[in-house]
């Protein structure tokens, strides 16, 4: 069973009488690490939330698995995971944060402890397993959130500014974890403010402006020869509005 590709068909989202996502028709397929770029308020986080099903589109539809895939909601939900800019961690140990997510998926006690420890190991957090999650540093919290998402073995993982407000060393550790998850075969769709990070990680770029996809290109093409004036201005560091 596979839920990819993910297709947005004319997806729009309004809130407070404002059109925040205008009309996005776009496909995400397995393989490349997709970086969603754009200025503040361009709709990056909203796009991820619409894809992940946390928000219902005002217009259009989010479709999984291509035509005739016949997937039910549970199958679709379980194939995805998301890590938020501010990681939401339970007030329990690092290990318990991961095993909780696996318990929700119905894994037995032994299996989930083993899977959780393995996931923590992969992001270099196994040594912190017994610590309370809420007293971790920002970078450790985000790696824990990544480990929790990874332990669920999603087909597609949404990351909303996963390394915002982290120092370079912590950013590096988070980026390593993201690269590891991607190498292991999970489709990654992420947003970032950090153009350097986008260059380091992206295989392809989806550039948003005013709730629309203005440009979609391979990362090298996007960074070297953006075709839209908006993306060109954005890459030059000009203010866009």
């Amino acid at each position, binding site marked *: 069973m596979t839920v990819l590709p993910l297709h947005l068909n004319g997806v729009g989202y309004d809130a407070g009488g404002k059109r925040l996502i205008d009309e996005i028709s776009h496909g995400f397929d397995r393989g490349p690490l997709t970086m969603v770029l754009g200025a503040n308020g361009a709709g990056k986080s909203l796009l991820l939330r619409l894809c992940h099903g946390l928000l219902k589109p005002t217009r259009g539809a989010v479709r999984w698995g291509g035509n005739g895939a016949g997937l039910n909601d*549970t199958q679709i939900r379980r194939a*995805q995971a998301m890590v938020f800019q501010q990681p939401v961690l*339970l*007030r*329990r140990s690092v290990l318990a944060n991961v095993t909780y*997510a696996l318990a929700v998926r119905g894994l037995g006690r032994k299996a989930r402890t083993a899977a959780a420890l393995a996931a923590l190991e992969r992001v270099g957090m196994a040594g912190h397993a017994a610590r*309370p999650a809420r*007293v971790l540093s920002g970078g450790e919290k985000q790696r824990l959130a990544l480990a929790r998402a990874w332990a*669920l073995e999603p087909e597609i993982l949404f990351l909303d500014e996963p390394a915002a407000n982290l120092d370079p060393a912590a950013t590096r550790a988070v980026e390593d974890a993201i690269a590891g998850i991607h190498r292991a075969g999970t489709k990654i769709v992420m947003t970032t403010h950090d153009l350097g990070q986008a260059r380091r990680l992206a295989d392809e770029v989806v550039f948003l402006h005013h709730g629309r996809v203005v440009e979609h290109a391979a990362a090298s093409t996007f960074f070297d020869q953006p075709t839209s004036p908006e993306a060109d201005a954005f890459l030059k560091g000009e203010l866009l509005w």
Partner: protein
Amino acid sequence: MNEFSDAVVTAGRLIATWDRDLAEIIGLSMRVSLSAVFFAAIVGLPLGAAVAVFRFPGRGIVTAVLNAFMGLPPVVVGLAVYLLLSRAGPLGSLGILFTPAAMVVAQCVLVTPLIAALSRQTVEDLHAEYAEQFRSLGVSPLRAIPTLLWDGRYSLSTAVFAGFGRAVAEVGAVIIVGGNINHVTRVMTTTIALETSKGNLALALALGLVLLAVSLAANMAALSVQDWARKAYA
């Protein structure tokens, strides 16, 4: 003021000599109120959490009722429980009127809405923080309830200690359903009421001081639990 200084001396002497009657009264007070709070917490915490997590028609009304019931007049509760437990009442066959069990029932009724209303607020705030992550993980509302109660355990201890404070300090309900029978259903508050009416003000005030000390100890326990939790779990 003379009574007050007498009372302090009497209280000191009563405690220092560990008067048997006093010990019995304090012991019964604690047993009744701790049992009442135990059962009230078993009902009130999940109830408050359920109101916080589930979206259903009439939720606002339920919240308003819970909040209003935090201030239930003890005598009214006592009377209602009395009617239920009296020989002619629907639960008369239990035969527990004028026993400590009846007092536990009355205090439980009194305290459950308090615990439920306070825990609703706590759990709702926590749920606001967790909601998106829960939906991402596919956590059902039913599953969210124990998770939120566990994660809010330190804040929720305040609700439980507040419930204990209300139970142990309450007089109207226990005097009606317990009857203030010496060596059977006499607790601190009913003794204070009795001794006051007999003009035995020093003894009444002395018991009042003990009662205050118990409440203070409960609240300090609540604070130190939270303080410790904040340091350990942030």
